[in-house]
C-alpha cells in the first residue's frame, strides 16, 4: 500500500496539445466555418488549424474509440478532442487531408456537422442503460430524434443554432433547463409503497429525510414499520427510491415525456433563458418514440419558418408571445402549463401586452 498513488488529478492538458496549438496558444485571431462541420482557426502568426467535427452517440465502446484513434493517427498526427456536446473534433494542420478524413468518417458512419446554425449532437443522460430513476430511455430517444433531424446536423439552414438536450427524469443530470428544445422524462404518479419489502430493506428516518418536499411520514399504525406518502406533496423526483428500493416511482403506463423550449446559455443579444414547458406529456413509446420525434420536428419547423434572422428559439417565442407559440405549433394549452411552484408569480401576465 505504501506506493499507492492517489490525488494526482488528471494529466496536465499540455501533453495532449498538437504542436500548432502549443505554438499559437492565446494567439488565435479569427475562425471561419469552411463548410458544415469543418472549422478553420487562424492565428496572428498566420498559422491555421482545421477541425473536422463528427457526431457521436456519447454512449460508445472502446472498439469505436480505437477506430476513431486510427483515423486521428492517419489524418491528424494522433491529435483529437471532444466538445462540450459530445462531438469528436479531429485536429488537422494539412487542409489537403480534410477530404480523405471526411471519406473515412463516412465509411465509419460518423456524420460530419454540428457547426454554426445546425442542430448539433443532443446532450443527454443515461436512461435505461444505467440509471435507477429514469422515466424514459435516453440514448434511444436521442437516436430516433437525430435520425429524423439528420438533415439539420450537416447543414446551416436554421435561423440560428438549435441546442437540444434530454434528461430522463426531473433531476436533470443533463441540466437541460436552458436548451432551445429540452426532452424531459417525467413520472406522473407518486411511488408505490411496498410495506413488506420496506420493513426489511429501508431505514425509515433516512427515507423520510430523503424527501425534498416532506411528503413522507411514518406509517400511522405503529405496528407497521413503514411509511406513507402524501400524494399531493410528491413531485415524483425519485429521491426516496434512491434511499429505499421499496418505493419504486415508475409507472410503465403513465410515465412519459415532456418538451420544454426556448432556453439558452449564450448572452448573445438576449440574456440566458430557461426552457419553458411546451408539451406536458407525450407517451413513452419505445423503440422509436414516434410522438416525441414528431413533436420535436414540428416545433423546429415552425421556429425555422417563423424566426427572424439569427433569432434563437427563445428569442422567437419571446417576440411573438407564448400564446402565439401555442397557436402556431398547434399545442393545446393546459393547467399544467401554468406555474404554481416557488416563483410562479414571475410568470403571470401583469400587463395588457398580449395578442388574440
Amino acid at each position, binding site marked *: 500500500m505504501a506506493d499507492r498513488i492517489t490525488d494526482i488529478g488528471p494529466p496536465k492538458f499540455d501533453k495532449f*496539445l498538437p504542436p500548432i496549438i502549443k505554438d499559437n496558444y492565446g494567439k*488565435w485571431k479569427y475562425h471561419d466555418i*469552411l463548410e458544415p462541420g469543418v472549422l478553420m482557426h487562424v492565428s496572428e502568426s498566420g498559422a491555421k488549424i482545421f477541425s473536422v467535427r463528427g457526431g457521436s452517440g456519447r454512449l460508445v465502446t*472502446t*472498439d469505436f474509440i480505437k477506430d476513431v484513434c486510427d483515423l486521428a493517427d492517419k489524418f491528424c498526427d494522433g491529435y483529437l478532442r471532444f*466538445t462540450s456536446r459530445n462531438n469528436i473534433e479531429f485536429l488537422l494542420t494539412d487542409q489537403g487531408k480534410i477530404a480523405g478524413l471526411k471519406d473515412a468518417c463516412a465509411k465509419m458512419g460518423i456524420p460530419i456537422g454540428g457547426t454554426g446554425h445546425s442542430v448539433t449532437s443532443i446532450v443527454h443522460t443515461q436512461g435505461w*442503460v444505467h440509471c435507477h430513476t429514469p422515466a424514459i430511455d435516453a440514448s434511444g430517444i436521442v437516436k430516433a430524434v437525430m435520425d429524423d433531424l439528420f438533415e439539420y446536423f450537416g447543414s446551416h439552414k436554421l435561423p440560428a443554432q438549435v441546442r437540444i438536450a434530454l434528461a430522463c427524469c426531473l433531476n436533470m443530470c443533463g441540466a437541460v433547463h436552458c436548451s432551445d428544445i429540452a426532452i424531459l422524462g417525467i413520472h406522473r404518479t407518486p411511488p408505490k409503497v411496498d410495506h413488506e419489502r420496506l420493513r426489511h430493506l429501508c431505514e425509515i428516518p433516512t427515507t423520510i429525510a430523503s424527501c425534498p418536499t416532506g411528503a413522507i411520514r411514518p406509517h400511522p399504525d405503529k405496528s407497521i414499520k413503514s411509511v406513507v406518502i402524501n400524494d399531493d406533496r410528491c413531485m415524483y423526483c425519485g429521491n426516496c427510491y434512491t434511499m429505499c428500493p421499496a418505493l419504486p416511482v415508475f409507472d410503465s403506463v403513465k410515465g412519459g415525456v415532456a418538451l420544454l423550449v426556448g432556453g439558452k446559455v449564450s448572452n448573445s443579444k438576449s440574456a440566458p433563458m430557461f426552457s419553458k414547458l411546451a408539451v406536458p406529456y407525450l407517451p413513452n413509446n419505445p423503440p422509436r418514440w414516434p410522438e416525441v420525434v414528431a413533436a420535436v420536428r414540428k416545433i423546429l419547423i415552425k421556429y425555422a419558418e417563423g424566426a427572424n434572422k439569427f433569432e434563437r428559439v427563445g428569442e422567437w417565442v419571446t417576440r411573438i408571445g407564448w400564446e402565439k407559440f401555442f397557436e402556431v405549433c398547434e399545442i393545446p394549452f393546459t393547467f399544467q402549463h401554468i406555474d404554481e411552484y416557488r416563483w410562479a408569480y414571475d410568470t403571470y401576465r401583469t400587463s395588457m401586452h398580449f395578442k388574440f
Partner: protein
Amino acid sequence: MHKTPLLDQLESGPWPSFITDLKRVAGRKKAAADLLGVLERSYKDKITHWKHGGIVGVLGYGSGIIGRYIDIPDEFPGVEHFHTVRVNQPSGWFYTTAALRELCDIWDKHGSSILNVHGSTGDMIFLGTTTDQLEPCFAALTAKGWDLGGSGSAMRTPSCCVGQARCEWACYDTMDLCYQTTQNFQFEMHRPSFPYKFKVKCSGCPNDCVAAIARADMSVIGVWKDDIRIDQAAVKAYAGGEIKPAGGGTIYKKLDIKADVTDLCPTICMSYEGGKLSIDNKNCNHCMHCINMMPQALRIGTETGATLLLGSHAPILEGAQMSWVIVPFMAMEAPYDEFTELIGNIHEWWSENGKNRERTGELMLRLGMRAFFEGVGLPPVPQTIRTPRANPFFFWHAEDFEAEAAGRKYIK
C-alpha cells in the same frame, strides 16, 4: 446473445447507432451482452431495471465510483454489478490517440468496454464493472497518470471550454484555471464533506460553451473591460458580402450591418454610418452578438479576465436557478490565488450554514445576498443585481450605523 427485436430497430437510420456499437463488444464482453438483454427488457417493460448503488469505491476515496446493481441478476448475471468509474478528463477534452488507447486498454481489461465520452459534468465515464475490479482499475489508471473525478456531496470535476487553445474569444486561460482548480481541490473532490455537490465550470467568453451559467455553483465566464477591437476594412468586406456572416455557419449569404448587427445590439451602443462602424464601448454589455456575426472584423478587448457568478443548479429543489454575478471582474492570472481563496471562503460559509442537500445558490436565497457577501468578504456592487428591491422592507444593522458614522459606504 440475447434476442433484441426492439433494440434492433435502432440500428437503422443515418445517426450513429449505439446498439450497433454495443453489439460489437457483446461478443467478447458478457457485461455488454447482458446490458443489451436488460435494455431490451426495459424497452418491453417501459421501466428501468437498475438499483441504486450502496457504498462501493476505492480505498481512501469517498467519490469517483457510482455503485449500480440490477434487480434481475439471475437473468442477467453479467451486469449483476455494473458500477461506474468517473475518470477525470484533461482540460478541454484534448487527447492524443496514445492516451485514448491507454484508457481503452485499461477499460477492456477491467470493465465492460462501454463508456461515455463524456458525462454531463465532464468526466470520461467508464460504464459498468464489478466490485472486485474497482481497485485494480484505479491502480491501472493512476499508474498511467489518471485519477478519478468527483461524485456525491463533494467538489465535482471542474470543466472548461476549449479556451485559448483554439478560440479567439477566450478572455482568460480556461484550460489552465480548470486544471489548477482541479489540482487545488483534490482532497475536496475525493472525500465528500460538503452539504451537497459543488460544481465549477469555466467558459472563456459570454457565449458560454460549457453552459457554466446554467449548471455550475461557481460559473467563471470570461469578459473584457476595454474596447472591442475593430478592423474597419474587414467590416467593409462583410458589408460587401466578401466575407460571409457568422464565420459562414449560416444560411444568410451577406450581412446587413445595420439590420443584423447594430439594430440587434441590446444596448444600442453601435452605429454604422458612411461605411464606418463605431462602438460606444462604455455602454457595451459584452453580449458577443456583433463579434459572433463578424469574427474577422471584431475582436474582444485586451484588458481581459472573468466574471464570477454563483448558484446555478437543475430544478431540485427550489426550481432551476441560473448563476448570478458575485464578482463582476477578476483578472484571472496564474496562480489564481484570489480565486482559490474565494472558493475556499464560499466552501467554509456554505459548510457552516448549509443544510444537508442544500446547494450554495439555495442557501444564498434562504439567508440572503447580504449574509453571503459578508460571510465570504465581498462588497455590494450594482452589477450583481438586475434591479434593486421594489419593496420597503430593508433593514439596518449596527454595523451600518457604524459605517455611516465613519463615513464609509458599507461595513468593510
